[in-house]
């Protein structure tokens, strides 16, 4: 890897970009799923039943993490660009990572993972 690619800012930018792509792919599916409620609660329920499998729940945790990653790293960008934040330390990125882990963990726990 080039020296510039080992920089924290590059890694943050790549994570931000990849999580954004994942969300862009997920969202139409998400909207479509919720829209099945137009046919009544039963239709939505049968769709939701599909998501009760471990693979689907694993993907859901992935999407929640992707959203948390994209949001926290996006907030870093907004802080630097518009709030005059001067940041080139590990500190802010660690805070972002911690926030992401918190969100992901709470989601997974609430889904019933970890007993």
């Amino acid at each position: 890897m080039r020296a510039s690619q080992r920089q924290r800012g590059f890694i943050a930018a790549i994570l931000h970009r990849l999580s954004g792509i994942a969300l862009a792919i997920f969202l139409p599916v998400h909207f479509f799923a919720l829209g099945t409620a137009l046919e009544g609660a039963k239709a939505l329920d049968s769709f939701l039943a599909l998501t009760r499998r471990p693979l689907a729940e694993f993907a859901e945790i992935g999407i929640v993490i992707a959203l948390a990653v994209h949001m926290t790293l996006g907030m870093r960008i907004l802080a630097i660009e518009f709030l005059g934040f001067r940041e080139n330390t590990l500190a802010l990125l660690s805070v972002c990572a911690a926030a992401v882990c918190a969100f992901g963990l709470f989601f997974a726990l609430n889904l019933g993972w970890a007993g």
Partner: protein
Amino acid sequence: MNARFFAAQRITAFVLALAVVVHLTTIIYAVRGGLTAADILARTHGNVGFALFYGVFVVAVAIHAPIGLRNVVREWSTWHGRTLDTTLAFFALLLLILGLRAVLAVFGS
């Protein structure tokens, strides 16, 4: 046009920063012990505040996501210009229509 894309994406980013915190917290809370249609609809049915919040959320996403994708495609592939912008405009429309449909679906059912 491009400066407007940039401004639109950053402004919707501020809106989404707030909306996503609310959404993530809500989802994490709501998902406790499993989620059924009845659970969702019980909260959202006839709830005007909910519908307004998620309506704004959908509009912001429909603006924010395609502009972000535009950057990615232009930098990581050779696709650019009118055809790309038009395709992404359709994607924005898709998100808007499906998203507002979803909001109406859970509001009205």
